């Protein structure tokens, strides 16, 4: 069986300008931040980012790699709003497709099933149809059938992805992925909806070793859903990756505070975003021991 191990640089080099990329996780939880940071410094352009948005969306918008964001929300959880995403929207720097969270789910599900749309009640009556004029409705082909009310449903189009990135607690070298935390989120659907599928993990183990880490139900991503697996320890930082680590709230506050001030943000970028992953992790360690000693 194929050994799917790869490096951050290798998987990011597969991306091209104009691609649509999906980012797994949810809000400021279990985001593939090592990859997000690498894309932010890649010099790519015109990406469409599809995400249950957290700091991934803010950082990518601020890096100038994003043409369009597709989301239902963007939040840092313990901090309600992401300042970088807000300023990108308020300054008109990005296009947006803002949809109901459930529509988002159905868009990924349709893409994973290779069908053009899925019908839903969600979105009807709201401004989601006004702000996304490309959205269409559909009436049931079974008039008078069960649950048919005779009026239109929203036809949520497939959110097909060129590439998807998710971060999990453990993976094996064949690309099976294991979520030891409480929620697998929509990671399987992001991978299912994508052409190039990348799983990053806190730790990559030998095939067969995942069941030593947790019960079989925690291996939610089978190798059918992955092309590459990358070991990125602390790779979700500063978002949470339970049970390996929680959100780094101090660092997230530093991120949000820096993002609100141009000089502070330039310093943050120099120290944390214009460096490779190893130097990032080193800088995070330094910051932590500094504040721990203070």
């Amino acid at each position: 069986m194929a050994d799917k191990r790869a490096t951050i640089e290798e998987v990011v080099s597969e991306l091209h300008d104009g691609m649509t990329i999906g980012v797994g996780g949810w809000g400021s939880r279990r985001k593939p931040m090592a990859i997000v940071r690498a894309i932010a410094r890649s010099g790519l352009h015109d990406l469409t980012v599809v995400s249950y948005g957290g700091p991934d969306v803010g950082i990518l918008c601020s890096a100038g790699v994003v043409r369009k964001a597709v989301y239902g929300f963007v939040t840092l959880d313990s901090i309600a709003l992401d300042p970088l995403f807000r300023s990108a929207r308020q300054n008109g720097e990005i296009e947006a497709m803002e949809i109901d969270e459930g529509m988002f789910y159905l868009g990924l599900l349709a893409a994973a099933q290779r069908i053009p749309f899925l019908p839903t009640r969600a979105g009807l009556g709201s401004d989601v149809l006004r702000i996304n004029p490309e959205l269409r409705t559909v009436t049931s082909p079974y008039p008078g059938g069960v649950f048919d009310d005779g009026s239109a449903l929203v036809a949520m189009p497939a959110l097909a992805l060129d590439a998807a990135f998710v971060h999990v607690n453990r993976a094996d070298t064949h690309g099976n992925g294991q979520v030891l935390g409480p929620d697998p989120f929509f990671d399987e659907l992001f991978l299912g909806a994508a052409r190039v599928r990348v799983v990053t993990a806190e730790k990559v183990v030998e095939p067969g070793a995942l069941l030593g880490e947790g019960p079989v139900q925690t291996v939610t991503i089978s190798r059918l859903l992955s092309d590459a697996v990358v070991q990125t320890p602390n790779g979700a930082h500063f978002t949470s990756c339970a049970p390996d680590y929680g959100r780094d709230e101090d660092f997230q506050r530093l991120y949000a505070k820096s993002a609100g001030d141009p000089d502070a943000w330039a310093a943050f970028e120099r120290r944390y975003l214009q460096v490779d992953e190893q130097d990032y992790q080193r800088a995070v360690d330094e910051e932590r021991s500094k504040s721990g000693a203070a």
Partner: protein
Amino acid sequence: MTEVGAGTDTGVSRAEVCAVACAEAFRGDGEIIASPFGTIPAVGARLARLTFEPDLVLTDGEAALMANTPAIDSARDDMVIEAWLPYRRVFDVVWSGRRHVMMMATQVDRYGNQNISCIGDWKRPKTQLIGVRGAPGNTVNHTTSYWVPAHSPRSFVERVDVVCGVGYDRASEAGPVASRFHEIRVVVSNLGVFDFDTPDHRMRVRSLHPGVTLSEVEEATGFELARAEGRAEIEESRLPTPEELSFIREVLDPRSLRDREISS
């Protein structure tokens, strides 16, 4: 802590009256998920379960359902977990209708349309907020209520900038698929409780919190509230019972987080 109106001398705070009003929103709901957003709604949903709605289902705020009813800021070790409900499965619940969400509203209008997306033109907002989130799907699939901790003409508006949660007028225009399961039950604010039990579903005052006058509410509301028909005067929001008060203060919110959410 601000005590309620002059002359009542009950020692009950406005936040505690609001918590009871939020609890009352869930009365009669039975075995469904109560999803409160915000501190005082969280106290309210738990209070309802400890008293008159024992079958309510509550989440742990993450991916599980919680069998016990500890304080709103309790440690995970104090929670007794009864079932698994990751985000993906939440949509099974939403679309089945077995849920009553109490969301916040940055703006709400007379028909119960709600906005949490942005202020200004959506194409280039003056202020970007969190996004439409699940509000469009919630409102056409199951009962929804709103919590507005700062009642003002900026939050109770003539027209919301982006319709996220669907109000009665928009649900009706969108047709029976949208209106069949639609119910905006109440809007609870720091000043009172409002509902849509009028012939054309325009918002009316259901009750004013003790110490709040109708003119105070009218001044703080950016549209005309419908008058309650056939009632001489507007009711006062009820005070907590002694049992409820001890649940709020000693069990559910012993660190008084509720007082940080509203200023009056």
